[in-house]
């Protein structure tokens, strides 16, 4: 290929994470930035999230998804940051050569000083669920239906059942109702909802849509087009209880059953993934096991709040900028990295994972946010942090749930007081 470009930082994905990372990198002194986006416009998933509730943390006002995206797109244009649309990244090599293609330029390569992975996530499909029955038309992932309704202007059906109470499913229950469809029920396999509490109030309760917890779809009826589904209650292990089956006629089934970080490119280049998050393992700089390759947003771990994506991505952008500057000034960064020991973050009772997974006290900022999710619903509990077995902090929480990401803050000062620290453990403790 004689078609090789170069950039100091190449950002894979122009959604909320990619945009915030680009803005931060530019503000930290890097000019040669390139964003590669596969869709026809910047903004990613925000473009189809037309509901309000975004930006209270970032902009101190309540915005819709497209408005939130527009704030960042405005900055991209103002800061003259380069981007290519309708461009699909095919491969990233370990030495950071990005292979991409689009209709105008064909196949091309970009040699990158640093790479920021910001590809977002995908919805878990029907195939991952083992629902018995036929495979008729009318079964959509909730996000697909959201795109059809909000961006393409099509209503996928009139009588709807939603499986899974993730936020997109709840939002779509309201959206389909407003567009004239009848949403009969939202069924959730778990005994608690996977979505935000506010969405249950304003998307289901407001419209009298029932939420059936500990229920799942056990049969799908209809050969060409969906005709109905059968719901059944499940026991503590998720197995349907015989005799609890109930038939619902419907022409549409929406699935809102989880999101999976989209890491085919990361895995292809040798980035190590955490099996719990399905996202890259990262250190305090949000840098993966490959030097100069950073990750942020939903490709790293699935978030509930775009505000936190922007915050995390800005950190990745800033750190990537520092990496590029350091790499230009000195070739000895590898030696520097090896000389600082990293502290491992581990999870105790109730905690499923942490991002990051390692922290280096010497390299960290004054404050380090550690984000995590819990594995179940805990009431009146403590979020506790242990340094090598010694509890150094605990914070009371009225309730923690898997659907809502939690965070703790570590300070450089704290870590410096424990020079021989090996392990930081985060766990949930009963009050």
């Amino acid at each position: 290929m004689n078609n090789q470009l170069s950039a100091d930082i190449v950002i894979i994905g122009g959604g909320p994470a990619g945009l915030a990372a680009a803005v931060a990198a530019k503000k930290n002194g890097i000019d040669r930035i390139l964003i590669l986006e596969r869709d026809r416009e910047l903004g990613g998933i925000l473009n189809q999230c037309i509901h309000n509730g975004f930006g209270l943390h970032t902009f101190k006002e309540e915005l819709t998804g497209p408005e939130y995206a527009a704030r960042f797109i405005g900055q991209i244009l103002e800061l003259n940051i380069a981007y290519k649309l309708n461009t699909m990244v095919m491969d990233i090599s370990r030495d950071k050569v990005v292979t991409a293609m689009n209709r105008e330029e064909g196949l091309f390569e970009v040699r990158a000083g640093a790479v920021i992975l910001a590809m977002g996530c995908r919805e878990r499909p029907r195939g991952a669920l083992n629902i018995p029955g036929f495979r008729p038309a009318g079964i959509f992932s909730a996000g697909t239906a959201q795109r059809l309704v909000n961006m393409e202007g099509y209503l996928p059906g009139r009588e709807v059942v939603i499986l899974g109470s993730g936020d997109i499913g709840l939002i779509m229950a309201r959206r389909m109702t407003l567009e004239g469809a009848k949403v009969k029920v939202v069924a959730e396999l778990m005994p608690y909802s996977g979505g935000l509490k506010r969405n249950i109030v304003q998307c289901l309760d407001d419209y009298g849509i029932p939420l059936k917890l500990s229920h799942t779809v056990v049969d799908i009826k209809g050969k060409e087009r969906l005709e109905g589904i059968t719901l059944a209650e499940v026991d503590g292990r998720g197995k349907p209880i015989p005799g609890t089956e109930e038939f619902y006629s419907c022409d549409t089934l929406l699935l809102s059953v989880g999101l999976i970080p989209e890491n085919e490119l990361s895995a292809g280049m040798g980035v190590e993934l955490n099996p719990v998050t399905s996202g890259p393992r990262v250190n305090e700089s949000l840098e993966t096991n490959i030097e100069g390759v950073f990750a942020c947003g939903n490709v790293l771990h699935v978030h509930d709040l775009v505000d936190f994506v922007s915050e995390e991505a800005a950190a990745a952008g800033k750190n990537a900028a520092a990496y590029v500057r350091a790499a230009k000034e000195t070739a000895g960064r590898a030696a520097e990295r090896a000389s600082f020991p990293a502290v491992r973050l581990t999870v105790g009772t109730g905690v499923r994972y942490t991002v990051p997974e390692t922290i280096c006290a010497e390299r960290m900022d004054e404050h380090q946010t550690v984000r995590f999710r819990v594995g179940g619903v805990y009431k009146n509990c403590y979020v506790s942090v242990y340094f090598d077995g010694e509890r150094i902090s605990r914070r009371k929480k009225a309730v923690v749930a898997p659907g809502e990401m939690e965070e703790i803050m570590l300070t450089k000062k704290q870590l410096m007081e424990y020079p021989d620290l090996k392990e930081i453990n985060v766990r949930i403790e009963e009050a």
Partner: protein
Amino acid sequence: MEEKNLICINCPLGCMLTVAMDGKKIVSVAGNTCRRGDTYARKELTNPTRIVTSTVRVLGGSESMVSVKTKEDIPKGKVLECVRALKDVVLPAPVKIGDVILEDAAGTGVSIVATKNVQ
């Protein structure tokens, strides 16, 4: 005195609010982590309101739909009427964020504005 439990919908924190009521009078609001929670509880129990978001067709633009919202929150009972009023609205491109799409939606006195730029 009567207690009512609400979940604040202003932001994704979803604070659990406890409202003490004396008949129809609100005596106190607890459980909120910010000022918005107090305002929400008082409003939700007297005159519940919502921001309404939807989409409207665009002709001759880079996109076929543009997203819109009520500029302010409107009474909950007017939500469906408000969406119905948007059903047959078609806009010529271009549309800019903040453009007024419909004035006085469903007699609420609140206008509906675009939330996306369409070239």
